């Protein structure tokens, strides 16, 4: 088969053009999703990642925290998004570390990939928060690793207009769904622009 250099060049240029358009799509800033209730207040906001564009907002209503990550994605089934939650690179662990200080150790103690919550199939994590503590008096003190807290996190995804809304509800001692219910909307408002 004869290879025509001009044709190879044109096809390569087209593929480059397509790749550039996909890059532009994934980098295009998302419109951050917000909780529907007006009783929560915002405690943090940042761009979590530029490619794909992920915007993170953290809210609290005094009982539990709600982190909403709006992710630029192409459509996929909900279960695939739950499986893709790991791509947030230890997001919950990092959050717990930020909340409790740098000296603590965060251990994932259990994980349920098909946790039914508010009409969604989410991923439920329970993290143990451990801290090195010195017990006893000199010269008989001993260093022990003590579990000081337990953190529950439930994450699920909504798929709206080529953006995904990953919601991560957190509360002490594996927050019950009722604790997070005040935030609960099946689909967070998301304009996807």
């Amino acid at each position, binding site marked *: *088969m004869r290879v025509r250099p001009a044709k190879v060049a044109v096809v390569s240029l087209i593929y480059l053009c*397509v790749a550039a358009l996909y890059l532009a*799509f994934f980098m*295009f800033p998302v419109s951050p999703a917000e909780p529907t209730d007006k009783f929560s207040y915002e405690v943090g906001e940042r761009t979590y990642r530029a490619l794909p564009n992920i915007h993170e907002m953290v809210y609290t209503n005094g009982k539990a925290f709600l982190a909403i990550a709006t992710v630029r994605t192409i459509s996929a*089934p909900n279960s695939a998004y739950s499986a893709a939650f790991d791509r947030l690179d230890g997001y919950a662990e990092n959050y717990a570390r930020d909340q409790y200080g740098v000296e603590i150790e965060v251990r994932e103690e259990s994980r349920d990939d098909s946790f039914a919550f508010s009409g969604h199939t989410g991923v439920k994590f329970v993290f143990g928060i451990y801290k090195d503590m010195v017990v006893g008096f000199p010269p008989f003190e001993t260093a022990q690793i003590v579990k000081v807290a337990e953190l529950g996190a439930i994450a699920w995804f909504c798929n709206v*207009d*080529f953006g995904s809304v990953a919601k991560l509800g957190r509360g002490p001692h594996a927050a019950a769904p009722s604790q997070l219910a005040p935030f609960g909307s099946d689909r967070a408002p998301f304009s*996807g622009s």
Partner: protein
Amino acid sequence: MNTAILLLVMTSVPMGLYNLSEFLRKERARGFFGMLAAGWSIAGVVLMSVGAPGLVFFPGLLVIVLAGSALRFREGRTTGLALRMLVFGSILCTVSVGLVLL
């Protein structure tokens, strides 16, 4: 239609235009199925943005590519086309099974 969706729609345009040029240069089967695939992708993005279920569009695209390859394979049997059909057929089977499981 917002900018992000417009960008996603535009990803199919260069390949559609290339296949239009192929079609006009007497490469009828290649050009036609290429344009059909590009049109299908554009329709998929637009329809999904107004609420159509997205699960049918990717398998549909694979079916179009497979049909185009099969037609060209009938005209002139080449190893490249056979290999292409095998690869796209395997992806289609995997995706279909995956969609059922998910």
